[in-house]
């Protein structure tokens, strides 16, 4: 029997259905691996040990009674701590929501449960998903399993690390400007941000509502396809959700052929600031796609240089509005102002001052500024127009090519602490992912090689970008690349990993 940590979700489900292990045994293997590794990595904020084992017993009983197993039957999953599961703590990595238990379950979480998955716990994240390193979590950073002195990226750091280190085969994150694709790249796994509207946001705590998308992590493309088929599709609770059924894989059968596929290579994604090793790994990956039959076509996305300011104006504006709800009245922390119990306004301002961390405050203030009277048109209004130009760049490129490929992150995993004092340097981590978010189109980070840094091997991600609704297409290209290379099967060196072996 193959060890738990080597199995993707599909293989684990098969192992259970073949009778090699029960769901309960699989949960024990998952929990043992978390116990062995998480003290050093800090992927989880909470582990639902008893509930997971109880549910495992129910699933084993259902299987024994002849019930038809779902597509994720018996698969342990982890959720980013901004996803609602009724009755479980969802704190968004923030002191202001410490202890908050949602009174309802998110649509996408319910769909995972309906497919037979078992939620093992909630994972660490930058506070309210604002950050690219996990260092903005109020509960301490998550560490990269490839080198614990480095960040795994962010904001969905815990979910990425839980998958990369073999604690769970799949996990959900949320991607607003790169928060799933960048940590996927930095930890050597797959991370898909779907087309905006593909997955319902009902039950995802809002950050930037015109950008947020629930986005899965996995160690195989097949698993990503299974998760997407489970969680996507129309939902009456989210008016921005596409009125379509679940996402179905394009051209089933492995490996898909890429003959005739045109891959756009944007010169702006291979420009200044791209680390040499990352460039080398991505160029080698493009050569693999070419060998598989694809044609590489140079394309231009001329407004790329405007994407960071556009994103940080739009996202902070939306965040300042979304986070206005945390005022100490209905849930979360309540603090009283200098005037004691006296004023309602004092309570609001004191609660927010005490409850939010530095980066969240910075973004709320920046967002309030760009929306304030006298500045709205010059900043927010203008950013919305530049956003339209960024989308037009992609539309023009997709007139010539089927997918676009380039690096996910300009740099590999960087040391914890390196960028914490410099917000602008941290924002630049997102330069290659935010244009895709602003355009609302799908982006998939694929493990595509390694760089050596100070004697440490660090993973590199290739971002495959598709046109609007082109999710299945980028997955198909990734499946072909996966079959031709072994990068997604490389696992990080882990002290204490034997604790997870069956």
């Amino acid at each position: 029997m193959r060890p738990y940590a080597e199995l993707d979700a599909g293989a684990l489900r098969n192992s259970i259905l073949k009778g090699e292990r029960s769901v309960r045994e699989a949960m024990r293997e998952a929990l043992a691996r978390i116990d062995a590794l998480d003290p050093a990595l800090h992927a989880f904020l909470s582990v639902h040990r008893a509930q997971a084992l109880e549910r495992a017993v129910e699933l084993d009983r259902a299987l024994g009674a002849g019930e038809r197993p779902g597509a994720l039957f018996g698969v342990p999953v982890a959720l980013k701590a901004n996803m609602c599961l009724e009755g479980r703590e969802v704190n968004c990595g923030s002191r202001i929501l410490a202890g908050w238990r949602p009174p309802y379950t998110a649509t996408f979480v319910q769909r995972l449960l309906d497919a037979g998955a078992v939620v093992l716990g909630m994972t660490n994240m930058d506070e309210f998903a604002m950050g690219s390193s996990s260092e903005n979590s109020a509960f301490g950073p998550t560490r990269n399993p490839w080198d614990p002195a480095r960040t795994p990226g962010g904001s969905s750091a815990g979910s990425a690390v839980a998958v990369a280190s073999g604690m769970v085969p799949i996990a959900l994150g949320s991607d607003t400007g790169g928060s799933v694709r960048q940590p996927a790249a930095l930890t050597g796994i797959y991370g898909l941000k779907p087309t905006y509207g593909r997955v319902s946001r009902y039950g995802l705590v809002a950050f930037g509502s015109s950008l947020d998308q629930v986005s899965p992590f996995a160690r195989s493309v097949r698993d990503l396809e299974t998760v997407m088929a489970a969680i996507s599709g129309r939902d009456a609770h989210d008016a921005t959700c596409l009125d379509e059924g679940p996402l179905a894989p394009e051209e089933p059968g492995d490996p898909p052929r890429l003959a005739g596929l045109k891959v756009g290579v944007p010169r702006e994604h291979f420009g200044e600031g791209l680390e040499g090793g990352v460039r080398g790994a991505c160029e080698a990956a493009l050569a693999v796609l070419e060998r598989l039959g694809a044609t590489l076509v140079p394309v231009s996305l001329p407004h790329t240089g405007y994407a960071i300011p556009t994103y940080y104006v739009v996202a902070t504006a939306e965040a300042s509005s979304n986070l206005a709800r945390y005022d100490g009245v209905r849930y979360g922390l309540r603090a009283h102002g200098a005037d004691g119990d006296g004023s309602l306004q004092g309570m609001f301002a004191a609660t927010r001052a005490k409850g939010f961390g530095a980066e969240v405050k910075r973004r709320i203030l920046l967002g309030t500024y760009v929306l304030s009277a006298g500045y709205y048109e010059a900043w927010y209004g203008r950013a919305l127009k530049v956003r339209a130009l960024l989308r037009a760049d992609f539309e023009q490129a997709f007139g010539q090519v089927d997918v676009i490929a380039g690096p996910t992150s300009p740099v590999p995993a960087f040391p914890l602490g390196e960028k914490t004092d410099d917000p602008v340097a941290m924002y630049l981590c997102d330069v290659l992912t935010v244009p895709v978010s602003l355009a609302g189109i799908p982006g998939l980070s694929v493990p595509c090689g390694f760089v050596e840094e100070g004697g440490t091997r660090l993973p590199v991600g290739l971002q495959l970008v598709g046109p609007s609704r082109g999710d299945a297409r980028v997955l198909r290209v990734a499946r072909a690349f996966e079959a031709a290379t072994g990068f997604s099967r490389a696992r990080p060196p882990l002290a204490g990993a034997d604790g997870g072996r069956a």
Partner: protein
Amino acid sequence: MASQEPRPAESGPETVRRVAELARLDVTDAEAAALGAQFARILEQFRVLEKLDVSGVDPMVGASLAGDVRRADEPVPSLPAEALLANAPRRIGDFYGVPRTVGGEEAG
């Protein structure tokens, strides 16, 4: 009209204080000073947006492909009050308790 737009790079501790009031967020003097300096730097970088000619460009207000979605105007059940009040920092009967805003003794 571009000529009517104010110069959009005003920053510094005074701006931070004014914006913090709008955002209902207490900031200390030290925070205002530090954030003011950061704002100046961030906004300076963001001024690159001013260089683009955006005349005639329609703003992209969102990324939704769903169009205008409506449902029938019929009442549907909502979450029970008890479940929602369970997270209240302070509860007075079936209400959220907050500091009194108009005259008299505070109840509860």
